[in-house]
Each structure stands twice: as C-alpha cells, then as structure tokens.
C-alpha cells in the first residue's frame, strides 16, 4: 500500500472517528457504537504494523510524536483493551442518556492515551494526559455517581498539575520539552531529578491509584458505566505506569540518585515510592476483601496491583522492571476481562451487588470461565500471565532483601486469593436465586472480547516470552540490562522459571486426575437445593447462599482501621470552613465590617511596605 501509516495518521484518524461516532450515534445508536468497535481495531492493526518503524518521529500540526519501544508496548495494551471492551458499547447504547457523547468521549480517551504514549515532548504528553482525564471525567457520571467523577477529577488534577509543575521546572532548568532529552539531562542534576521524580511520580501514582491517591479508583471504577470500568481499570490506569516508567527508568533514577543514601539496593527516594506501593498493596487488599460491590472489589484490587507495578518500576533492576511490565500487561488483560464479566452479569441481572447474586454459573457458564481465568491471573496463579509477573517481582524483592516490602507483597498476593474468590463464590457459584432463573447467557458479541482477553491471558501465561522479549527490547532501548531467556525458560536472579513446562506438567496432572475421575462410577446429578442441611427442609435458595459479609471474621479484625477518605474529607471540610469564614467575615453586607478590614489591611500594608 502506498499510504504510509504514521502515528499522526492514527491519532487524526481516531479524532475523526470520534466525531464520526458522535454524528452517527445521533443518527443511529448502534451504528455509532460500531464505530467505537472498528476504530480501535483499525488502530490496533495500524500500531501493530508500526512495529518495524520504531524510533521514527511524526509531527501533526504543532505536536511532535515519536514511536518508542515502550510507547509501542503501552499503546498495544491500551488498544487491545479498548478494542475488546468496545463490543460492549453496542449493548449499552440503549441504557445511556448521552450515547453520542459517550461514544465520542470513549474514542477521545483512546486518542488521549495513544497521544500520551507517543508524545515526543512533555507538552504533548500533558495535553493528551489531560485529554484522558477530561474525556473519562465526563463518561464516569453517566454511571451511578456524579460525586465519583468529582473525586476522580480532584485526584487526577492533583496528579497532572504536579506533573505540569515538574514539566515547567524541567523546562526552566534545561530549556527543552523533549522528553528523552530532558530526562537524560535531569539524570545528571540531582535536584532537578528529584523534582521530576516526585512531581511526575505523583502524577503516575495518582493515575495508578497508589496509596494515598487510591480513593478515586473504587469510586470511579465502581460507579462508571459498566462498559467503561474495564477501560479505566485495564487501560487508563496503566498510563500511570507509563509516567512512573519515564522517571524511574528512562530518566534513569538509579543514576540520578546514585549519590543519595542507598537503602536495600535502591536510593532512599525510590524506596519511599516503593513503600507507598507496599502500603497500597496492603490497603488495596484489605479494602477489596471488605467490598460487597463486585466492581468496587476489582477496583480495590487494581489498587493493590498498582502497588506491585510501582514497586517493580521503582526497583529499577532488569527483573523488577520486566516484572512490572509483565504485570501491567497481565493485569490490564485480567482486570479488563473481570470487569467485562461483571458487565455481562450486570447486563443480564441489572446489579453488581454480590449479596444479590449467586449461582450464575448455571446460567452464564462462559462468563464464569472468563472470570475464573481473569482471577487466576490476578491472584498470580500459574498458568496465567499474572503468575509470571509476580514471580519476577518476588525475585527482585528477595534479591534486594526488602523484608517489609516483601511482607506486604506476600500479604497482597495471598490476600488476593481471598478477594478474587469472593465474587467467584458469591456471584457465580452457590445457590441460584429464583429471581435469576430466567437469566440468559451473555450475548455472543459480548463473549468475543471476553474470550479474546482470556485466551491471551492463558497464551501469555504459557508463552510469556513473547511479551518478555519485547520487554527485554524496551529495557535495552532505555539503556538497561535486558531480561535473560533460555528457550522457554526465564532466567531469574536466584532461580529460573519455565512456564511452558509448568503447563505441561499441570496438563499431565490434570489428565491423570481426569482418568481417575472417568474410571469410577458416574455420579448422580442432583439439584442444587438438594444439599446437606442437617436434614432440615429449606426451600429458599437465598438462605442457603453464603455471600453476605463473606469474610466477616477477618473484616472484624481491621474494622477500626483508619479510613483514608476521612483525611481527604477533613481537608476539604477545612477548606470549606475557611471558605465559609471568609465569606462571612470579609464579604459581610454591613459596610462597617468591610471598612474595618480595609483599615486593618491598609495599616498592615503600610507597615509591611515600610519594613
């Protein structure tokens, strides 16, 4: 084909398709929704084809783009998630009040992420970064909550404005907006590096949802439209990983902070970041265990997983960064799939409250399998992609001897079994409530993306090297040591892992078990309600369904734990109170009071001026 596809073309194409989606949705809702399916797929194909032209630059109007190895990687993840999720839009058109706006903003959010990943300069990065924020900020209130959007914006603004501060600080110091150039220069100047690390790091932490900026996740993910939660959790959140990657690895922080106090193999600044990651693992895990809302649960699990990502990136050794990348990838796939499963359930039953559901495996078996694969990956159990990343991260943690961080990570890892199992048990297994007897299977179009995501999770769990080789190339492209492989084996620092072998052995084990199972007498099929009740006659399935406050004994142990949201509420309350005071004291309707203040102020000014 004579047409050369550049990043600019893709971005412009997406912008045009956003407008097109808006117009077409006005005409016909379904057609408009299909635009949101097609556009990411085309973009996915286009970006995939750009694999060979990494390193080339494009310019579009005033924006400069550069396709980097990591930009390509992040873009692929994002497009994959968007392309898969967009199938669900078709079904949600009827439920929306502003379908046209939704479709447009959906594609704008995609444009924003791609633009941010491929921007050559910080201004472009920031523009697209904010584009993600405002486009998703308008989508979230289409869901259940308006407040959620405000909370989302508040945190995002905190992050992006911190980033803006950093950008301008760096510009002032080095006179350039070019990301690579500036970061390389910053690495030679500890102060500038520190400012960049903290400000851009905060932006990344906010986006990732790392403690203490994690509060927007459960609110936004939990209340966004069901079709958008997977985008938030699987896609947009990962942009935070991109920001952290920029300052931790591209800068690179290990060179910039080489003169700092080194602690546990990393500089103290990085270690503080890692500690935040560790805290967010614990907080995310504990909070996820507590939730009754399916979506909020996965949202808090994203908080916990964000902790792993930031730990991996901040440790900046080959395995940890590789692990973080793999984790970004695996978690994007898994959480998107899990949220899609929720969306499918919500589409059929109309609720996401776990205590109201149950036994859906008998009505939606494929959705169940999708969710199962997703949670196996999220919990880091082989043979899914999530295991590989966790293994790599653990290797690094142990190598650095980070006892406390590892404690948090282990806790999060085992704790994840708890929270991922709860929806499995409460939503899909257990007793089917009579009000859901007539629930149908998820529609075919919904199944396609779910199966794609699950398939990829399994595929990259068995052959993670496909991804890890790309990751390795990213690492060498930013001047790091790359990951080591030996055939299907991943070489770690204190041991190696052969995921393919694990799968083979697991397959053998499974086959033996299957043979044992088949050799023995066939079981009698009984109804779900025909179950052990100490011979009491019970006819209400809900009574036999254990889903309400599932981990009650465990929750009891930390029910008095401090609530982070209270801190923010307290701050905002103080702001409000000061505001109220100002309004009362200075904007009085009694002139004498204002005159009094004017006199005071003038005396103060005269005094201040004569000092």
């Amino acid at each position, binding site marked *: 084909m004579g047409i050369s596809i550049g990043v600019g073309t893709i971005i412009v194409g997406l912008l045009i398709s956003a407008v097109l989606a808006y117009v077409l949705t006005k005409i016909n809702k379904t057609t408009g929704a299909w635009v949101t399916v097609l556009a990411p797929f085309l973009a996915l194909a286009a970006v995939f084809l750009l694999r060979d032209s990494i390193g080339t630059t494009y310019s579009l109007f005033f924006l400069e783009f550069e396709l980097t190895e990591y930009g390509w990687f992040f873009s692929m993840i994002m497009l994959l998630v968007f392309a898969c999720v967009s199938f669900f839009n078709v079904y949600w058109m009827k439920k929306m009040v502003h379908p046209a706006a939704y479709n447009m903003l959906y594609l704008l959010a995609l444009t924003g992420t791609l633009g941010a990943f491929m921007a050559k300069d910080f201004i472009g990065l920031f523009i697209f970064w904010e584009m993600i924020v405002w486009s998703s900020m308008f989508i979230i209130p289409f869901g259940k909550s308006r407040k959620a959007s405000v909370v989302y914006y508040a945190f995002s603004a905190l992050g992006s404005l911190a980033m803006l501060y950093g950008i301008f600080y760096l510009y002032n110091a080095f006179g350039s907006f070019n990301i690579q150039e500036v970061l390389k220069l910053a690495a030679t100047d500890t102060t500038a590096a520190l400012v960049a690390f903290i400000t851009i790091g905060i932006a990344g932490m906010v986006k990732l949802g790392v403690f203490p900026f994690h509060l927007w996740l459960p609110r936004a993910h939990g209340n966004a439209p069901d079709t958008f939660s997977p985008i938030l959790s699987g896609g947009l959140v990962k942009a935070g990983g991109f920001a952290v990657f920029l300052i931790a690895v591209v800068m690179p922080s290990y060179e910039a902070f080489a003169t700092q106090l080194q602690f546990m193999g990393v500089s103290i600044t990085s270690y503080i970041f890692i500690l935040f990651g560790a805290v967010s693992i614990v907080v995310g895990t504990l909070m996820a265990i507590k939730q009754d809302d399916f979506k909020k649960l996965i949202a808090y699990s994203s908080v916990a997983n964000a902790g792993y990502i930031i730990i991996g990136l901040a440790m900046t050794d080959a395995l940890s960064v590789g692990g973080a990348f793999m984790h970004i990838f695996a978690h994007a796939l898994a959480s998107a799939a899990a949220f899609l499963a929720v969306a499918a359930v919500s589409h059929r039953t109309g609720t996401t409250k776990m205590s109201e559901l149950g036994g859906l495996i008998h009505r939606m078996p494929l959705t169940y399998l999708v969710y199962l694969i997703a949670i196996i990956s999220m919990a880091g159990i082989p043979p899914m992609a999530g295991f590989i990343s966790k293994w790599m991260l653990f290797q690094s943690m142990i190598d650095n001897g980070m006892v406390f961080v590892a404690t948090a990570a282990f806790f999060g890892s085992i704790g994840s079994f708890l929270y991922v199992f709860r929806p499995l048990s409460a939503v899909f297994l257990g007793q089917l409530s009579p009000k859901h007897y007539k629930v149908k299977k998820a529609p075919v179009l919904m199944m396609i993306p779910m199966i794609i995501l699950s398939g990829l999770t399994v595929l990259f769990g068995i052959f993670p090297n496909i991804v890890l080789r790309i990751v390795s190339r990213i690492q060498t492209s930013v001047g790091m040591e790359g990951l080591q492989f030996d055939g299907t084996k991943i070489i770690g620092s204190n041991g190696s892992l052969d995921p393919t072998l694990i799968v083979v052995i697991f397959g053998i084990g499974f086959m033996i078990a299957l043979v044992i199972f088949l050799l023995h007498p066939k079981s009698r099929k009984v109804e779900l309600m025909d179950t052990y009740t100490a*011979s*009491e*006659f019970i*006819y209400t399935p809900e009574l036999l369904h254990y889903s309400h406050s599932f981990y009650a004994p465990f929750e009891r142990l930390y029910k008095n734990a401090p609530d982070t949201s209270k801190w923010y509420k307290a701050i905002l309350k103080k702001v409000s109170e000061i505001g109220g005071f100002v309004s009362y004291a200075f904007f009085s309707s009694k002139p004498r009071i204002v005159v009094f203040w004017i006199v005071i102020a003038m005396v103060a000014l005269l005094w201040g001026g004569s000092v």
Partner: protein
Amino acid sequence: MSKKERAVAKRKKKWDGISNFFRANSIWMLMYCTGCCAIELPQAMTSKYDMERLGMGPMATPRQADVILVTGYLSVKTLRRVIYAYEQMGEPKYLVAFGPCTINGGIYYDAHPVIKSLDQYLPIDVYIAGCMPKPEAVMNGFQDLIDMIKRKEANGWRKYQENKEWYRENQIHALGELRIKDEFHE
C-alpha cells in the same frame, strides 16, 4: 442378556467383589442420634471398644457416610429427617437400627407420634438388640454388617431402590407429607 452384557455384568461383579472388600473395612457412620441408644456409641468408639480398628469412624454429613445409625425411637417429625438424610447418602449405603423401638416402638409402642416399625419406611440391614444394646452388642452388630457386606448381603439400598413406590407409599401414609414446607417458620 447378550453375551457382551453378560461379560460386563460379570466384570462388574468382580469389581464389586474388590470394592466390597474396601467397603467392608471402611465404614463411615452418620449417627442419627434420636433415642437413648446413642449413649452407647461413645463407649463403642473410644478406647474400651475402639470402633476404628474395624475401619469405622464418624462422619459429618450423609454425603460422606456409608451407614446411617438410627439409635432408637423415631417420631413422625424425625422420620422425615431420617428419610431425607438416607436419600442424600451415596450408594451403596446401609442402615443399622438400634433397639426394639425401631422394630415395634419398644416402650413407646402406644405413643401416637412414634413410628412403630422402621422397616416399613426404610430398608434395615442390621438390627441391634437390647434396650439399650450393650457396647458389645453394638460392636457385634457392626461386625455382622461387615460380614454381610463381604457376603454381598447388605443390599438394603438396592431393595429400597427397587421397591421405592412401596416405601414411598408407606412413608406418605404415615407422614401425610414427606417433605413439609415448615413446621415452625419459613
């Protein structure tokens, strides 16, 4: 019966023989402790008589159990539960009845809510005599059950399967309604 079917049946019988060896020596009990005879079970289980040396042991639910012990009289209310529990057990399953109450109501022969002869409602493999049976008798009864299993005579469950209608009829006759909605509350 064709040749092939006969061969299958023969093989099945052979396997049944092997299975019965295991079954006989690994009997898990579900204790339905309705009456006074239950007080003899602790004796039989613990160090004095040590039921475990026969491979027997208590189990928590009917699903896991092989034998259900009806230890004494059954009222109408409890019979329903016993039937429910018995039907939940996996096959093969056995029923051991304790004392005279399960035969003719024993000392409750004239009490109106008490079921007089249990074998009208459920197939009984072994009766254990005594009011209450001594632990020796209990152990003896279990040994009998083991022997019966080995000899393939403990076929109560098969009888129950084959004569389901008859049993059901009796059950309904006595109970009016097998599975009640609820006696106390719903």
